[in-house]
């Protein structure tokens, strides 16, 4: 039994979510390989070769793999899997925007079910995954020959990076295929802050912030002092106070930092689904009945516009 992890990267560095997927893969099968698909991305392949537990890296390089389009990437994954017969029993992706985009396409082309967002590996064919916004945990068993899986990163520790590459890197020729879609451009915010899903501390704001200006003015100093990433509730994102990729919740980002600070967030079940696995939760809210207090380790019933600046002064 061998598991194949599809690496996520920007052609220079491996995304940390892949390290969590590697840990999940090691629970599925004794041997783990990593498939790196990209354009001039040999640095990523050697980085993957240095991750503990990885015994082989397959590197496929092609100019049209610069941006991970689902059609192109899945076609390459499928032709690689077909070329190696029945070597792989598991194909794993991190459950990121990119992984969620590509994995079901691979599963459908293999005519197998996909097991989404696993949080635990029970055995090679049995997994735990949350359903109904995390209000229930299902234990599911797959009867398919190949298990296509997306891994909820908060469920697994990151595999350690061992420095010197220890696994062999094998280059495989890309296949050509018709282009069905074309990458036009992207607007990605450049920030010095830690990435939301990998941050140790998250400061998150809700509708109570009242405006985009106030959101930034009140929460940024706290996030700076705590070295935190900024997050938001759906209400705050919908109202335009924060960008969409900051949304924490059932259908946004799932996070589990050491410290999660919820400011002016009432705590709808959809929001709690995205952050209730955080180690320590702090809630600052004026409303004593806010559901967020039912999951908070430390609740401060206060006006956030006074409490947050006061906290910043003490840090």
């Amino acid at each position, binding site marked *: 039994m061998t598991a194949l992890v599809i690496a996520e990267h920007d052609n220079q560095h491996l995304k940390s979510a892949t390290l969590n997927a590697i840990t999940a893969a090691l629970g599925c099968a004794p041997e783990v390989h990593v498939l790196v698909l990209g354009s001039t991305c040999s640095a990523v392949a050697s980085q993957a070769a240095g991750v503990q537990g990885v015994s082989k890296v397959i590197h496929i390089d092609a100019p049209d793999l610069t941006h991970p389009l*689902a*059609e192109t990437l*899945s076609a390459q994954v499928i032709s690689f899997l077909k070329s190696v017969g029945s070597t792989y029993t598991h194909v794993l992706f991190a459950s990121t*925007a990119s992984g*969620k*985009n*590509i994995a*079901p*396409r*691979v*599963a*459908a*082309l293999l005519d*197998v*079910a*996909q097991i989404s*967002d696993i949080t635990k590996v029970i055995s090679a064919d*049995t997994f735990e995954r949350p*359903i*109904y916004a995390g*209000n*229930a*945990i*299902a234990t*599911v*068993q*797959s*009867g398919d020959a190949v298990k296509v899986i997306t891994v909820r990163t908060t469920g697994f520790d990151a595999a350690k990076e061992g420095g010197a590459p220890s696994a062999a890197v094998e280059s495989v020729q890309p296949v050509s295929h018709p282009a069905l*879609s*074309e*990458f*036009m*451009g992207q*607007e*990605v*915010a450049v920030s010095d802050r830690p*990435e939301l899903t990998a941050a140790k501390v998250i400061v998150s704001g809700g509708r109570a912030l009242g405006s985009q200006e106030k959101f930034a003015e009140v929460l940024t100093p706290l996030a700076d002092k705590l070295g935190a990433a900024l997050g938001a509730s759906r209400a705050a994102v919908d109202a335009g106070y924060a*960008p*969409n*990729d900051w949304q924490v919740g*059932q*259908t946004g*980002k799932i996070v589990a930092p050491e*410290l999660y600070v919820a400011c002016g967030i009432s705590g709808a079940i*959809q929001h709690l689904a995205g952050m209730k696995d955080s*180690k320590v*939760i*702090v809630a600052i809210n004026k409303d004593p009945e806010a559901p967020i*207090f039912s*999951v908070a*380790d*430390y*609740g*401060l019933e*206060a006006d956030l516009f006074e*409490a947050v600046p*006061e*906290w910043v002064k*003490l*840090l």
Partner: protein
Amino acid sequence: MKILVAVKRVVDYNVKVRVKSDQSGVDIANLKMSMNPFDEIALEEAVRLKEKGLATEVIAVSCGVTQCQETLRTAMAIGADRAILVETTTELEPLGVAKILKALVEREQPGLIILGKQAIDDDCNQTGQMLAALAGISQATFASKVELSGEGVKVTREVDGGLETLSLKLPAVITTDLRLNEPRFVTLPNIMKAKKKQLDTLTPESLGVDVSPRIKMLKVCDPPTRSAGVKVQDVASLMDKLKNEAKVV
């Protein structure tokens, strides 16, 4: 150009479900059921494209039990022209639904197929991508903007870190994210009109699709509960707790 929209009947998003005591599943008997919120956004987008004169017909499809008819009537009240129910009592998985939709795509030849990015019950986030793969067509998931023109469609997608824009050849599959649009309210006159619209019923068998489950649900449990902690009096005592008790600052 026709647009096909897939809609799923799910437990209403405001209802908190309970796990059955025998751990065989989630108890959904007598709960309020609604259209999956992401599918409502999908339907709204399709109806808006028709209203702009960019589409000729909007067809709503649902797969599942007889009661999905109610979801389809709602879809027609929002503005779908007709509806198709693919009726089965088999517990459907995304792969099975994708196969049904692929068979309907072959029949109806739509230019666009719009689906919600994920259903809020099983939280799978698979069906749209699987349909695109099986039909051998392009996909744009997690859409926040759709611009249709002639032979193609430009879609802005919500991705980790920001937004991405793709240009797709038609036919294409689009799955919707929250910021794409705000669905309209259903009006009483439109509910009345929807009752007269055409609703066809098919079965997976009549479409030649095998929907037998691939995944066995062994058990369903409650998640580990997180108990409420303490309320602190002021910012100073919050700092003290975080420093000396939780040791996270």
